[in-house]
């Protein structure tokens, strides 16, 4: 029995995990609808596939349990969730404790505004039928867990080029 414990990580390893800073400010970006179906998921830290579904179910459960009078930030495990609801669709972003909740809250809205511009009035179906494009848009905005671009013209420019080329 005690061998089980002695096979634990050596102390030096533990130390490393403590000092290792949690660099990914944004851990994941989810779009989940009220029924709990994931419409888009992007993880900026590796999470195993079966753990993702569990996490997503937990996340949406947490979001649904909150009323409009409650704040849009949830402390969840060792990170925070920032969520925003658009009709039946929740956009939930997992962030670490150093990220600014309100900035992420508005990032979500900026993202929706970009989608709105691209699809000219976006709907859940737009997102489903153009999952690849939505991902491309998101990749322009958030990379590696960092907010890299918020200028709408610049976010959409690469995609517009791709669309144009596909057309010709």
């Amino acid at each position: 029995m005690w061998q089980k414990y002695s096979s634990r990580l050596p102390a030096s390893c533990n130390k490393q995990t403590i000092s290792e800073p949690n660099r990914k400010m944004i851990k994941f970006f989810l779009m989940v609808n009220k029924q709990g179906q994931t419409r888009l998921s992007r993880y900026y830290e590796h999470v195993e596939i079966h753990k993702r579904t569990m996490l997503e179910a937990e996340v949406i459960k947490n979001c649904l349990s909150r009323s409009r009078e409650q704040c849009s930030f949830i402390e969840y495990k060792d990170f925070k969730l920032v969520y925003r609801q658009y009709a039946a669709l929740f956009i939930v972003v997992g962030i670490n404790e150093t990220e600014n909740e309100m900035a992420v809250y508005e990032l979500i809205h900026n993202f929706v505004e970009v989608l709105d511009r691209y699809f000219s009035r976006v709907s859940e179906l737009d997102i489903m039928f153009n999952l690849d494009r939505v991902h491309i848009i998101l990749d322009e905005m958030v990379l590696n867990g960092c907010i890299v671009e918020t200028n709408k013209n610049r976010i959409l420019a690469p995609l517009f080029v791709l669309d144009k080329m596909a057309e010709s």
Partner: protein
Amino acid sequence: MSDVVERTLSALPGLLGQHDPGAGPGGGPGRFSATSRLGSLIRSITALSSKHEEEKLIQQEQTNLKATVSAPTTTLRLMKECMVRLIYCEMLGYESSFGYIHAIKLAQQGNLLEKRVGYLAVSLFLHENHELLLLLVNTVVKDLQSTNLVEVCMALTVVSQIFPREMIPAVLPLIEDKLQHSKEIIRRKAVQALYKFYLIAPNQVQHIHDKFRKALCDRDVGVMAASLHIYLQMIKKNASGYKDLTESFVTILKQVVGGKLPIDFNYHSVPAPWLQIQLLRILGLLGKDDPRTSELMYDVLDESLRRAEINHNITYAILFECVQTIYTICPKSDLLEKAAKCIGKFVLSPKINLKYLGLKALTYVIQQDPNLALQHQMTIIECLDHPDPIIKRETLELLYRITNGQNVTVIVQKMLDYLRQSKEEYTIINLTGKIAELTMNAVFSVGGDVMHPDIPNNFLRLLAEGFDDEKEDEQLRLYAVQSYLSLLEEEDTFYPQKFLQVMSWVLGEYSYLTNDGDPEIIITRLHRLLKQTFVTSETKAWIMTAITKMSSRMSCSKTVDKLIQEFSTSLDTCMRQYAFELKHLCENKELMKKLLPLDASCDEIMVDASLSFLDGFVAEGLRCGAAPYKPHHQRQEEKLSQEKGDMSSSGFTGRQSPAGLSLGSDMSGNSAEIGQKETNCLKLDGVRKLWGKEGYLPKKENKTGKEDKTQPVPPDSILMGHVVDPPLMQSEQQVVSLSEEEKEKKQLASTLFVGLGSNSSISLMGRADTINQKLKKKSKISETQNSEEASSFQNIATLPFSPLPDTAPNNKENFQGNEHLGLRKVSLSSSEVLEASVSFDTSQSLREAGLDEKLSNCRLSTSSLFADSNIEVFQPPKTVPDIVARKAPLSLCLPEELAGHPHSEIVELCSCDILTVYSCKVWTDDCSLLVLFVANNSTSPLKTVNLVFETTEHFKIFESLSCHFPVIEAQSMESCQKCVQLEKVCTEGILSGSISYHLDMDTHLEFSLIFSLSDFIRPMKITTEDFGRLWLSFSNDVKQNIKMSPSQGSLSIALNALKQKLKLHIVEIIGNEGIAACQLLPSIPCLLHCRTHARTLALWFRSSCSALPDSLLYQCQKMMEES
């Protein structure tokens, strides 16, 4: 905008059936092309109703996909679609690894969009260390060299998402080249890729640091912004290396804040907010503990605070970051003041997200400025009982930071209350850890020896057995070690014995966790303790055990040698024995390591079940160790232990001493294995034994290992049971004795915030320097007295915020009363407006006919607000403003150009001694105007009066949200008017705002008023033909049958009633059918068709706006019910 999104999204279910065949944006595939395989997959997914169905569907899909992707005939175009379907499968949680290789192939062979999707799939499917990733490298290298910029972009994007570390050298030169590219997007993405490399292999990009600088100075904002991510990381690691860049960052921020960026970087007219936030973070890191660097950024921080005045979430985000930076860098008083004000605004805000942000900011700054907590103590108390558990928890976090010896019991109690309600495991673990931290230091140091002996035992068990989260445990332990070390740094301080015992156990067990603590130093400190006269022999035994444990981890130590020498001749037999054991152990390091493994305090104890060896041992022991096969030293030990057989107070005998036994057994030639097991068991046993006193451990020596292993008690119940209860009862009694809730809160405040503030600050958390004072041993009584004294002192010091009923002078009471009065008035007036707006024209105060008549519903009861009697009700006669309040309305009148329009009565919005705000709604044909009057009641002129509305989702206020009066002369009045528009349809909404002015000090008054839908409805004069045409063009309709009361009689009576209240235009009435039209300002039409049948009225609304018919119908129903 969001409204639009919301509406279109809500229309989804209807859309599902009718897929729009129109072309997608940019000429891509059809927007919802239902015919494709992807289309049918999506349709099936939306139709899913159970997990089982989903499994079946996806398995089927995967089978199909497997066949398709491996078929040689599959075109790239089809492959692209397959990838999206695969993404769906994985997104739903079904691993589809068969497709990974095809994703890489698609990235390799595909053409632009196909290639992009290939790369996308790769970045979604694979993780950093996936072996297939190596196959991508060639494609990336090829694309980086491509002449097609789009391909270069894609390659750079994927590199910055996912790239094998060992292949960095293959692409690094190519990416470095891109830093000089003429296109900004390429340069920007190259910097992003380098950021990725910096994260995964910082050494590999060390040589290009000067290129980062170039990127920082790039003429393009995007490239510069991308480089900031790298700088943030580098500065986090080593701030001193980048101080010379401070000025650059300041200049950049100045330019951003000053609006020098291209307009498309604005978000809701705030220039590049996320960029500002990033810069503020960097400045915070640079200015920390560095007065000279901090100096450089004061100006720009001040400007940022000033510029972020628009009421929008994004400016709050900037302000929050600004406040954090201001409190991180070297302090500057006027900035701190502004930041504090900002925090105050957040905390007091009715917006819940803002309140959260305020609490978070307050938590951050509270250690530097505990006075801020005092200022907001009532808000904090309210937040403690907030219905939102997240707010509650954030408040607890805040309290945790301000815990000191005097308020610890109350705060821990609050935490426990929360714990009882909380269900989420992680929260419980986290909070329990904090409670443990708080209690261990505060309770141990104050409570000292009078504590129940179980408390330290249980605490140590908590620490040792830990929670489920390894990391959390480590941190708690590390924290404990560090805090104890700093405590021991002080020489000649007296600590309770129990506390010393806990300290030495923790240090012995976990001191290896600290990086900085040289074990030699720790041992020296412990050694010093050993020589103190006040340390009892029991405690000394603990200390010796700790030293033994620690010395097992170091090769040799002078202190240990010295110690052994010193104590081998000690008169204390116990100590002598320990020294002896230690000496032998030191000679056999190998054994020592086995004996005392790291972090093994929880290891399951193995007891040789047969006890054969032990039986012999016991028997020998009973025979006074005379057996010939025993080594000499062991016999001697046993003799020693007999000599001091009556030393029961120390709770152990020589035979039970952990090391001695092990040594003996090992040397006695018994099997080494058993010996080891024994020693493991007994080592712990020995330690445990020391925790207890009389009767805690059974007398039978060798079985204790087993019996001692009692069920671990859940940590929270331990704490509730022993640590908190007695003081809790005390505080409960205090609270109960005061009847009113307000008083309770104040009482709570005084207990919570005791010891905060300027001189009495003795925070326990992380403040080794002040710990001295706190550790003076006090009897419980004197301690309570002290804290009571302190609390009353505190209350006097901060009177305006927390007048205790018994200590506060009368006038302060009045002040408090006034505030409440103000609040009540506001709510009163608004609720009256609300009532008035739904009740029908019974008012005598109607002055104008026509439209005015319909609109005057708001003025009804408000006139009475200024009548003496009404004021009397809420205001004690002595208080100041009533005289003024009576006078003021006399001079109130609308500007001439507005007086002709229908308007509401002028009502008081809010008031204080100094000023009063009145409001009046004016309904012109094309807008709703809100006229505000600000009256200066005082005898001196008021300067810089600012009136600011808060942004709400429902209303839009034109021109600007604020109104500024440079000066308002004494006893005079200023007015301003704002055009209000309904932004999001609702039946009723609250518009709130605040007014602030400066007179001696800054004062802030909040107000709110209600607007209802009818404020924004105007008749729409159209003909029957127009009506018919419009009717057909609208798609949003609502139908409802309403019962009519006999008094409502015919259709025309009902319709006329509606016309007056809802401001409809009746287009035509034919028999039992009628049509009417109105518009929501500025010009959203809504049509009504109604028909009477028997006693029901069938209403049918149609509009171009989806929410409008619903809301109007609601109003109609309400009116019909009331009349």
